[in-house]
């Protein structure tokens, strides 16, 4: 029985993972208080990752922080590289800026993202130029947007009449106006800065935009395009009739859509294929209206895949 228990002890020792040098690692970690020890731990790529990260954290509190962070941008540990970017963000030197620009090309998207966020705060032409390059060439849309510094804001869609729990009456469609395809125009927006250019504004000059029909843009001259695209169209509304709500109906959208009517943001979809938006307040009766739709295409057919309609309800 005793032998059995001793064998069991040994097995548990092994299985519980208490390695022979475990105690040593904890002591070594405690001893990382002097710069040479820190640098030594960091310089050994094969060293225990906890020790290396502890060493790096400690170095960042010393006078060697900036050169160490610059060197660390080549470390194989992406967390150390991220910490290096974070440190360099607060350093005004040109060496730090150059290092951040290099980090903007890191293989890890999170490192690149942090580098871009850090460079946004720098006014130098080097940083500005680098950010433009990132905006044009970066594959990660989050990083592209960060380089542009103009995220699209959304505040949520207005509640439709049919969803109002205190509307106790039947709702009947009393009119429908198809959005004319004849005036539909399209513009790609590969670096997603259309909003900053005013594509959504009423009165925007879209004369250079190309005509397009409803349906996937891939089949209409943009076969490989996977990014953001804008639509603009003008239509006239008849004289005002009795109504309780006016809705814009987008029966099928390939991607995520943001919609403006007469320059006012009226709502968005977050990838739903069918979208219905309340435009009661924004519609111009007895006059011209301008509709702008921004679509972020996904992997499938992109754009406004079916004709849109203005619907009137009572």
């Amino acid at each position, binding site marked *: 029985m005793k032998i059995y*228990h*001793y064998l*069991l*002890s040994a*097995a*548990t*020792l092994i*299985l*519980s*993972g*208490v*390695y022979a*040098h*475990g*105690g*040593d*690692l*904890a002591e070594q*970690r*405690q001893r990382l208080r002097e710069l040479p020890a820190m640098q030594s731990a960091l310089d050994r790529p094969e060293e*225990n*990752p*906890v020790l290396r*990260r*502890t060493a*790096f*954290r400690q170095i960042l*509190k010393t006078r060697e922080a900036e050169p160490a962070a610059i060197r660390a941008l080549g470390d194989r540990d992406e*967390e*150390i590289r*991220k*910490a290096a*970017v*974070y440190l360099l963000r607060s350093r005004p030197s040109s060496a730090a800026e150059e290092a951040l620009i290099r980090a903007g090309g890191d293989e890890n998207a*999170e490192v690149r993202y*942090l580098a871009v*966020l850090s460079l*946004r705060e720098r006014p130098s032409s080097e940083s500005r130029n680098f950010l433009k390059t990132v905006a044009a060439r970066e594959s990660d849309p989050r990083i592209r947007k*960060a380089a542009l510094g103009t*995220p699209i*804001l*959304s*505040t*949520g869609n207005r*509640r439709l009449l049919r*969803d*109002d*729990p*205190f509307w106790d009456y039947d709702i009947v469609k009393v009119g429908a106006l198809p959005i004319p395809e004849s005036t539909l125009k399209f513009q790609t927006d590969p670096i997603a800065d259309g909003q900053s250019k005013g594509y959504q504004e009423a009165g925007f000059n879209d004369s250079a935009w190309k005509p397009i029909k409803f349906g996937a843009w891939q089949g209409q001259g943009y076969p490989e395009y996977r990014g953001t695209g804008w639509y603009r169209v003008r239509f006239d509304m008849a004289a005002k009739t009795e109504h309780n709500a006016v809705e814009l109906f987008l029966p099928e959208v390939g991607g995520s859509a943001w919609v403006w009517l007469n320059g006012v943001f009226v709502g968005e979809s977050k990838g739903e294929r069918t979208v219905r938006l309340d435009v009661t307040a924004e519609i111009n009766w007895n006059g011209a209206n301008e509709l702008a739709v921004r679509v972020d295409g996904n992997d499938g057919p992109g754009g406004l895949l079916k004709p849109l309609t203005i619907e009137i309800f009572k």
Partner: protein
Amino acid sequence: MKRNFGYALLAALVVHAALLCAGEARIELKGRSVFYRLEPEAKIILEVVNSGKTELPAGTMTVSADGLGSLFPFHARLPPISAGGGHRVEVPVPVVVQPGGYLFSVEANWNTGSDPLVARYRKTVSIVEKNDEAMPVVMWGTGKLTELKRIGFTHQLYSLNPASGVERQIQGLDAHLRYGIGALDRAGIGPLTRQYPRLDRNGVSYARPNLDAANPEAVAILRAKAGKVAECFGSHPAFAGAMIHTEVRDKTNPSFSGFEQEAYRKFSGVEVPTEVNSRWSLGYQSIPGLPDFRVVPDHHPLLTYYRWFWKIGDGWNPLHGSVSRGYHDALPAGRGFWSFHDPVVRVPPVWGGGGEVDAISHWTYSYPDPLKMGQVTDELLAMGDGRPGQMLMKMTQAIWYRSQVAPGNDIADKPQWAVDKPDAPFISIAPDNLREAFWLKIARRLDGIMYHGYPSLVEETSHKSYFLTNTESREVLAELVRDVIVPLGALLKTIPEPPPRMAILESFATSIFAPKQHSFGWGGSWSALLHQALQWAHYQPAILYEEHIRRGDLDNVEVLILAGCEVLPQSTFDTIRKFQERGGIVVGDEFLVPGILPDISVRSFSYDYSRPDRSKEQLQKLGMEIRRQLEPFFTSSASADTQDMILRMRSYGTADYLFAINDRRTFGDYVGQWGKVMEKGLPCRGAVSVPKPVQAAYDLVKHCPVPLSPGPNGVMFELELAPGDGKLIMLAAKPIGSLLIDAPGTVTAGKEFHYSIRITDTDGQPFAALVPVELTLTDRQGRKLLAERFPVVKDGIFEGRMTLSVNLKTDKVRLNVRCLASGRTASCDIAAVSP
């Protein structure tokens, strides 16, 4: 012949006249007929009603009770009672008697001439024992008292209404008391939501209506309602508590009726931010000006607002407290009564949930992995830390959603219940799952446990949705209550939680600006899954809020887990960096805010609900990978050679209390055919290591020592666990030496006496731990005279008080004590003297 007829007629007339002159009367019982043994001022109220047409003269009343003989003669004089009137007599009830039913015989007499009037009445008055030490086992619902008693429930919900049928409800409370079940009123909102709705910025009620809980009129109405219930029923001890407002905050939203806006203005000095339109903020990506690196100022306007809203601003927490005070203020001082609110952690992680109720509770569905129960219970503990002294209770849902565990009927090997009840929307919890969930929750320090779903657990009723599909589950619960809660409940309530050495941060800022990261009490977030992975790695992570960190609770923590902390407030960020500077270890994931370099990295995990076996395997692997990296720097309090044995430790004095729970499971034949839940437990055997100088170990459920062997830096022992089962092992620095019980040699019946129980270690020193014991009072033949008690001997001594019944049929009694750790027994004899 004629003369005889005449005499007969005269006699009849005389009798008739006598009857007319004598009148009619009856005796009725008003109020209670069940009392606690030793209850102060116990009395029954008898009403003598003159149902005749003439006034009754003064009379007398005598009350006697079978079995009490000369101990209880009661006499009272009755005043004249007008026709149709009544007179109440309060009859003291002897309560220092043996528990049981006593037939009270009441006789009222009036000297109304040659034919005196007599009214009689008989009623059984019951004396029942009270047990304040017991851990409450609450049925969150209403069921048959006999069945609840059989299983071991101590409380159930029982709505009380002072507006009608008070006598009937008093009798209902009597029935509860007779069965030893406390009745908990249900304080609801009723139609007030329609009358006082929350309003959005347009002045319109929200699509999902909710009460404007900050409206003082609504508060006053609900508080007064609670007060009326307490005034009407508060004298009945079976009215044990109240559930206050369940599931109300799911539909809360900022109310723009004026009250909240005014309150926020007073609180902050500014208006409600214009960005506020719902209970949630916009995501951090959509908020202009939010720092890129996601560390926000502590006083960011939205953070300030939402912290206020979820703590007190929406009015619910203050309202719960107000209603609770409504009950308490109308009850006699010192009266035992507790209010509770649930589900308390279905909110962002900020203290104050439930307001000033006496107890907070939360419920959990134990599928797909019962370990969820442990994780959510830890969230409950975290919430409770904000109000020390508030009781904590944990509920298991005894109903399972059919749609989530056994969807559809198109399956091979359909179990019989699915054939018999193919459309049951809710079915019974699986028995092994109930067992395991039970152990996981009592491994934490709780003040009570609850179960919901009487028709699915005990017996079907007229409930349209809950069906009983597995009768074994209720028997499992009965067994657990009998074998664990009854003997160990007092101990379980007492052993403290240890200061955390490993903790998971649930960030309020993240829950507001990146709400998908927070679990909201459902146990399904990435952070919750990581908690489970750590349990499988034999760690014991506590859950901390930002408030804990501000309070300094990080000081004793050695490992901090930051899962899904996408946004942090500045002060928390700074404190975590300081934590690392002093040597603390951070485990972080890909969501962690920049600026904190984690010592160990993990990647988030998504649970595949279509493959719970694979998901469990992957989480166990994740847990072991974290352990592999952490092992050189941090030692867990206990470990086992199998991940399916979950370990949790609490401590007191020089003793540790180790809970070992079996999580080895497979797909069974109850719902396993659908592949959604591994509901069938399997036996599990493992070797447990504890790196401490333990000299003795005791199985507190089996009441016997556990053999120890030397282990790495401490001891090892083997445990064998049945499917879903658990064990509670007390690990002591020294073995138990002696057990003694001491009481006076002679005691007068009816007079309280003191006794003491002492436990020493093998060195003769008081045993510095909490040790549960069983105490019984028996007669010469060993028959129990009173129900057994299970006090806790603390630091080697327990001092108790007892009163022998005045109607004892023996002059010698014996006090017996059994140590529920070592199994040792001791006793002392007492001579009982009549009063």
